[in-house]
C-alpha cells in the first residue's frame, strides 16, 4: 500500500470557475421550455383585462371548435382543486380563498379565467383569443393608502376595510425614548412596487401517468419539495406519487419561491386529458401574474439626543399585499420590522403593520424580501437625523453601531446578531473612497454650482433563513453524500440553486473535506424522487444552511471512511489526509478508492458498521446569520435635467467566510444592479383603475450594461459562529446595501437646495422639480 505525505491543496476560498457553466455557455442546458414529451399538449391561459369585475358569462364554444383544441377549462371545472396556499400565519389574518381559476369574480388584471389546451402552442394562443368572457366591471383600488381610506372599493366584498391583518411589535420602552429625546425626525418613505423579472419566465410541464397513478411535474421553481407537498394537498394526491423536478432555472430572485395557480392547473389538466401538458408564461403574464416585490409606505420617526445618540424608533408600515396572499405575502413586512434596528444599538422600537388588499398583483419575496425596505428606511432616517443635527453621516453611524464586544447582541426586536464588526467595513469603504478629500471636492463643486453627492449606507441583514421556529415551513436543510464503489462522490442537496453556483461551492467543500479531486464530485439538486426532502433556495440560505448540512454529512462519512481504512490497514485508528487513510505509526496508507471499494465489497466490516458509504444529514440552524457591510456611492446630478450619474460605487461587504470569491463578487454585483434598479429606474405603476401601466419591458426599465457603474467590491471577513463553515450568506447583500446609499447620495447632492428626502425611483423629472423648487 502506497505512502502519501503531501498535503493536498484546499479549494475553499479559491476562485474556482463554475462547474455548471459548460452546459450554459454552449446552450445545452435544459430549461423548462426546452422539455419535450411525446404527446405533449400546450396550454394558454385566458386572463381578465379588468382589475375588478363580475363574470357574467363565459362562452368557450368558439375556442373548442378550432381544430387542434382538445379542451377548455373554466372556474366551474376546477372548484374541487384546493386554493393557492399561503403558508404564512399571523394572528387574525384574513385569507381570501384563492381559486386556481376565477369563479364568479376577478380581482386583478391577469386573473386566470379559463385555460385552453391544444396540440400546439400556436393553436392554443389562437383559441384563447376565441374564448368570450362577459364582464361587468366593478370599482377597483390600486393604491394601499387609498384602499385603507373610508369608502374605498372593497377588494374582497366580505372585508370592506381592505385590511388583511394588523401586526404590532414592540421592544424596550419607546414612549420613554421619545420623551427623553432632544430631537425627533419624521419622514414618510416609500419602497415602490417592483417586478422581479427573472429572465426566464415561469413555466410548468405536467405529465400524469394514469396506469401508475403518478404525476411528474416540472416547474421553474426555487422550492421543489415544498411545491410537491403543497401541490399534493391542493390536488388531493398522495405526496409520494407526485414527483417535482426543477430543470435549469433562469433566475428567480424570490419570484419562484411560491406555489402558483398554474402549477396546480397543469397537473389538473394533465390528469383530465391524459397527456402531458406545458404552459410557459409570457413576459406580459410574468408582469401580471408572478409576484411583485416591495410595495411599502412607511412612516418613520426617530428619537435621538443632540449628540447623535439614537434612542428609539417608531414605524407605521402599510404593506400593499395585492389582491391575494401568495405563499409568504403577509410575512414579508414582518421581516422588515425585525430588521428595523439595523446595525445600531438602540433598544426601543415600536412598529405597526397594516396589510392592505389592493386590486393588484400579490406582493411576496423579492430579493431581500422585507429587509431592503427596512434598511432603506433606517439608513435614510439616520441621514435625515445627521442632517438635522448637522453631523457627518459617517460619524453618526460609527457612534451608534453595536459595539464589537456586545455579540451576540440581542436587538429590541428579539434577534440575536451572531457576530459583527460594523465599523470595519465602513472605515474600509471610507478609506477606499478617501472620504475626507471627497468632502473637500464636494465643497469645491458646490461653490461652482455643481450638485455632487456622497451617500453612505451601513446595512445589516438577516440571512440563512432560517431556524425552523422562525419560518413558515421549516428552516433546516438537508444533504446526502454518496460515495460510489469506484470512489466517485455524489452530493444530493435539498437546496435548489438556480445561478448561485452551489454545484461548484458544494463541490469545493466536498473535495476539501474528503480530499478528493473536485472533478470526482457531482452535485445534484431539484428532483424530489432523487433528492431527500429539502427546503429550497431563498433568503441567502444555500451555503450557510445547505452547506452546513453537507458539512455534517461529510463528517459522518469521514468517520466511516476512517473505520474502513483502519480495518483495511488492520490498525485501531487512521487519519484521513488528502483522501488517503494513513496509519501514522507505520506510515502505511490506503487510498480513498480502495476504501470505497471495500465498503461496498463488505468482506470485512468494521464493528457496528453497515456496508456502503452514504450519509444524510438534516441540519437545523440554531440562529440566523447577520451579514453586514457598507456601501458608498458618489453621484453627480445634472442641474439642468435632474439626471443622476453614479461616479463611484464602493461596496465593502462582510458575509463571513468566503468559499468562492468569484461567485461572491458575482452575487454582490447582481445584487447592486437590482438595488440600483430600484433606486433609479424600476417601478410598477398602476392606474387608478388597477391597470398595470408599466406592463412590459418597454415601460419597466431594468438596468442594462450601459446604465451600470463599475462596482468596486471588497470584503471584510467576520466568521459566523452559527455554523462550522463560518459563512453568512451574500445573495441579497448587494440589493439591501445599495438603494439607501444611492438615495442618500442624491439627497446629499441636493441638500444645499433644502432637499431632505426623495422617494424612489429617483427619476430625472422628480429631481428636476426639486431643483426648481429649491431655486424658488
Amino acid at each position, binding site marked *: 500500500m502506497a505512502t502519501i505525505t503531501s498535503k493536498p491543496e484546499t479549494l475553499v476560498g479559491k476562485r474556482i470557475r463554475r462547474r455548471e457553466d459548460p452546459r450554459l455557455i454552449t446552450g445545452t442546458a435544459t430549461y423548462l421550455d426546452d422539455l419535450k414529451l411525446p404527446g405533449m399538449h400546450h396550454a394558454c391561459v385566458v386572463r381578465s383585462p379588468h382589475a375588478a369585475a363580475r363574470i357574467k358569462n363565459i362562452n368557450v364554444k368558439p375556442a373548442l371548435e378550432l381544430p387542434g383544441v382538445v379542451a377548455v377549462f373554466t372556474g366551474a371545472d376546477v372548484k374541487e382543486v384546493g386554493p393557492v396556499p399561503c403558508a404564512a400565519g399571523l394572528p387574525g389574518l384574513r385569507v381570501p380563498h384563492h381559486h386556481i381559476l376565477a369563479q364568479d369574480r376577478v380581482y386583478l388584471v391577469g386573473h386566470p379565467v379559463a385555460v385552453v389546451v391544444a396540440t400546439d402552442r400556436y393553436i392554443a394562443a389562437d383559441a384563447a383569443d376565441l374564448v368570450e368572457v362577459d364582464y361587468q366591471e366593478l370599482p377597483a383600488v390600486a393604491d394601499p393608502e387609498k384602499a385603507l381610506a373610508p369608502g374605498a372599493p372593497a377588494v374582497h366584498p366580505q372585508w370592506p376595510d381592505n385590511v388583511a391583518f394588523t401586526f404590532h411589535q414592540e421592544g424596550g420602552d419607546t414612549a420613554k425614548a421619545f420623551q427623553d429625546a432632544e430631537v425627533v425626525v419624521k419622514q414618510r418613505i416609500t419602497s415602490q412596487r417592483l417586478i422581479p423579472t427573472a*429572465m426566464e419566465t415561469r413555466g410548468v410541464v405536467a405529465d400524469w401517468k394514469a396506469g401508475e397513478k403518478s404525476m411528474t411535474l416540472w416547474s421553474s421553481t426555487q422550492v421543489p419539495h415544498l411545491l410537491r407537498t403543497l401541490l399534493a394537498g391542493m390536488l388531493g394526491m398522495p405526496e409520494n406519487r407526485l414527483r417535482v423536478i426543477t430543470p435549469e432555472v433562469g433566475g428567480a430572485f424570490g419570484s419562484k419561491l411560491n406555489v402558483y395557480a398554474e402549477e396546480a392547473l397543469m397537473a389538473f389538466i394533465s390528469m383530465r386529458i391524459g397527456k402531458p401538458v406545458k404552459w410557459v408564461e409570457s413576459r406580459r403574464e410574468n408582469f401580471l401574474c408572478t409576484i411583485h416585490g416591495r410595495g411599502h409606505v412607511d412612516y418613520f420617526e426617530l428619537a435621538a439626543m443632540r449628540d447623535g445618540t439614537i434612542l428609539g424608533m417608531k414605524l407605521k408600515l402599510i404593506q400593499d399585499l395585492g389582491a391575494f396572499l401568495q405563499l409568504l405575502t403577509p410575512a414579508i413586512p414582518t421581516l422588515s420590522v425585525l430588521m428595523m434596528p439595523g446595525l445600531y444599538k438602540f433598544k426601543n422600537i415600536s412598529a405597526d403593520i397594516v396589510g392592505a388588499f389592493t386590486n393588484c398583483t400579490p406582493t411576496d419575496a423579492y430579493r431581500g424580501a422585507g429587509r431592503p425596505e427596512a434598511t432603506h428606511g433606517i439608513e435614510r432616517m439616520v441621514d435625515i437625523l445627521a442632517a438635522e443635527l448637522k453631523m457627518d453621516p459617517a460619524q453618526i453611524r460609527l457612534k451608534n453601531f453595536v459595539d464589537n464586544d456586545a455579540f451576540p447582541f440581542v436587538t429590541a426586536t428579539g434577534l440575536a446578531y451572531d457576530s459583527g464588526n460594523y465599523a470595519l467595513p465602513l472605515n474600509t469603504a471610507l478609506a477606499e473612497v478617501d472620504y475626507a478629500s471627497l468632502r473637500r471636492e464636494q465643497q469645491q463643486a458646490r461653490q461652482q454650482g455643481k450638485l455632487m453627492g456622497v451617500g453612505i449606507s451601513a446595512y445589516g441583514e438577516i440571512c440563512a433563513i432560517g431556524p425552523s421556529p422562525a419560518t413558515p415551513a421549516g428552516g433546516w436543510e438537508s444533504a446526502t453524500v454518496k460515495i460510489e464503489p469506484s470512489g466517485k462522490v455524489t452530493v444530493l442537496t435539498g437546496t435548489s440553486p438556480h445561478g448561485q453556483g452551489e454545484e461548484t461551492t458544494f463541490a469545493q467543500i466536498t473535495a476539501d473535506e474528503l480530499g478528493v479531486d473536485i472533478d470526482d464530485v457531482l452535485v445534484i439538486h431539484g428532483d424530489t424522487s432523487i433528492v431527500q426532502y429539502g427546503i429550497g433556495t431563498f433568503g441567502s440560505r444555500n451555503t450557510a444552511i445547505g452547506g452546513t448540512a453537507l458539512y455534517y454529512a461529510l463528517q459522518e462519512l469521514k468517520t466511516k471512511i476512517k473505520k474502513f481504512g483502519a480495518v483495511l490497514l488492520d490498525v485501531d485508528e487512521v487519519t484521513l489526509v488528502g483522501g488517503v487513510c494513513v496509519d501514522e505509526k507505520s506510515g502505511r496508507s490506503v487510498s480513498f478508492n480502495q476504501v470505497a471499494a471495500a465498503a461496498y465489497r463488505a468482506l470485512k466490516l468494521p464493528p457496528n458498521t453497515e456496508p456502503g458509504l452514504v450519509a444524510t444529514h438534516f441540519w437545523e440552524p440554531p440562529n440566523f446569520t447577520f451579514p453586514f457591510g457598507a456601501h458608498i456611492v458618489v453621484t453627480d446630478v445634472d442641474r439642468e435635467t435632474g439626471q443622476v450619474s453614479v461616479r463611484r460605487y464602493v461596496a465593502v461587504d462582510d458575509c463571513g467566510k468566503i468559499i468562492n470569491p468569484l461567485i461572491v463578487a*458575482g452575487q454582490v454585483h447582481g445584487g447592486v444592479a437590482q438595488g440600483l434598479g430600484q433606486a433609479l429606474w424600476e417601478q410598477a405603476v398602476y392606474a387608478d383603475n388597477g391597470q398595470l401601466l408599466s406592463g412590459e419591458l418597454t415601460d419597466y426599465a431594468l438596468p442594462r450594461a450601459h446604465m451600470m457603474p463599475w462596482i468596486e467590491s471588497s470584503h471584510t471577513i467576520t466568521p459566523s459562529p452559527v455554523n462550522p463553515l463560518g459563512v453568512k450568506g451574500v445573495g441579497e447583500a448587494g440589493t439591501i446595501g445599495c438603494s439607501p446609499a444611492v438615495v442618500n447620495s442624491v439627497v446629499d447632492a441636493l441638500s444645499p437646495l433644502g432637499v431632505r428626502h426623495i422617494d424612489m425611483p429617483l427619476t430625472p423629472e422628480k429631481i428636476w422639480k426639486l431643483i426648481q423648487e429649491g431655486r424658488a
Partner: protein
Amino acid sequence: MKRKISLTLNGKAVADEVEPRLLLIHYLREVASLTGPHIGCETSTCGACTVLLDGRAVKSCAMFTVQADGRQVLTIEGLAPNGKLDPLQEAFWNEHGLQCGFCTPGMILTARQLLNDNPSPTEEEIRKGLEGNLCRCTGYQHIINAVKAAAAKQGA
C-alpha cells in the same frame, strides 16, 4: 399556407415547410430542436433569443422564419463546433460572466459580433455594444471582464 424554406443552420443546410407566422425563435427551438436561443420577452427588448444572421446579431423572436429563407443562421450551438469553445465562451466561463445562464447564449453571440466589428473594445464600447441584451443576475461587470478577456486572447 405553409411555405418552403431552406437555410444554413450552424453550417448545415436545412429545409422545412413552415407557416409564415412561425417566428424564427420557434423554428430554432421547436422545429430544429435547439435549446440555446431562449425566449425572454415578446417586445424584442431582452436579447435572450439573439442569433447571428449572416454574421450579424439579430433577435430571432422578432423575425419570421420565412425572412431567414436562404440565409445563414448561427446559434450558440454552432459557435463551438467539435466542442472547441469560442474564446468568448471560454472567457465567460473563466470570468464568471453568467449566473442563471438564461441570457448567456444571446449575450455571447452579441459579444461575438461586437468583437468581430471591433477586436479591442473599450469598457464603454462593450457596455454600449451589449445594450440590447438584458441580464438580471450579474450586474454585467463579469460579462464586461469576459469580453475584455476574450478580446485580449483573440488579439494575442
